[in-house]
């Protein structure tokens, strides 16, 4: 590939990345602008799909696919919760559910400015040069002319089962704890909570008395 082709490819990459990024941000803003909570949920899903597309263009096909699959199910669950808990799930009654809007906007603007200034001030070419000559982690040669680029999915799979196994261990235990804790929190008091392990209590042991009898 000659230099012109590389330059054209770079421009296309930049335009594509910028377009997908604009879609991701616009849909992210739409989450807090639209009236309908169902639309807000699907706007958030669209933002995630755009970010998954960006990950895909970076060569991270597996992580992009995981993001799309996970977020599709997650947003479907969230839509159900929206209908269950929001006062105005379909946006039929115009209403605002915002507090401290100005201070929140000021904090968000400050965060954005600080991050963007950092992104554009740092000398990334020096960072890239430093990283490319760093010592590898045993996952294959790095920093040398023969450093073949490992397929990204194979790379992350080997990492979490090898050099980064601590991450996998922590993630596994965390997800197990989440399953247990979420189940305990979400489960209502059942008859064994109210009438004892052998269901022999005559009056139910409720936090607030006056509930239904057996």
């Amino acid at each position: 590939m000659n230099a012109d082709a590389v330059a054209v490819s770079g421009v296309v990459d930049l335009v594509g990345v910028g377009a997908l990024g604009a879609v991701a941000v616009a849909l992210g803003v739409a989450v807090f602008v639209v009236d309908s909570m169902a639309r807000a949920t699907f706007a958030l899903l669209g933002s995630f799909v755009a970010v998954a597309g960006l990950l895909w263009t970076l060569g991270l096909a597996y992580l992009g696919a995981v993001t799309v699959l996970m977020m599709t199910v997650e947003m479907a669950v969230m839509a159900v919760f929206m209908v269950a808990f929001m006062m105005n799930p379909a946006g039929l009654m115009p209403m605002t559910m915002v507090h401290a809007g100005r201070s929140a906007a000021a904090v968000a603007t400050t965060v954005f400015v600080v991050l963007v200034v950092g992104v554009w001030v740092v000398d990334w070419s020096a960072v890239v040069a430093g990283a490319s000559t760093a010592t590898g982690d045993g996952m294959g040669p790095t920093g040398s002319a023969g450093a073949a680029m490992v397929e990204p999915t194979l790379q992350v799979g080997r990492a979490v089962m090898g050099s980064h196994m601590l991450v996998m261990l922590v993630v596994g235990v965390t997800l197990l704890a989440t399953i247990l804790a979420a189940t305990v929190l979400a489960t209502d008091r059942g008859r064994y909570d109210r009438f004892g392990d052998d269901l022999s209590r005559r009056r139910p042991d409720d936090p607030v008395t006056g509930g239904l009898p057996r």
Partner: protein
Amino acid sequence: MTAVQPLIDPLTMQVLLSVAAALVAVGVFGALSQQSVVMVMMGLELVVNGVLLAGGGAWAAISPTRPDGQVLVVMGLVVMAVEMAMGFAVVLAIYRARQVDMVDMATDLSG
């Protein structure tokens, strides 16, 4: 020693990181300004969405031969799943106990 070529140039990475910063900022705004607990969770999701993008962009531009950036993205996905599951569980528990679905009504821990 010849340097390994990154997958994207620094300019593209800077655009990606700027988009990630915008997503984080929009998420922060949502998490701070929304009254509904579920909408607050959507703001937090947007923040993590920005982290995912920043992790992927940094991996491709800085060190595509090392898995660290990808592992950060995996961690971000797990954080998102845990936040969602625990958030919904807490919303269910507090709604069942006190009919609370707005953050302004759940100020027990405020100083």
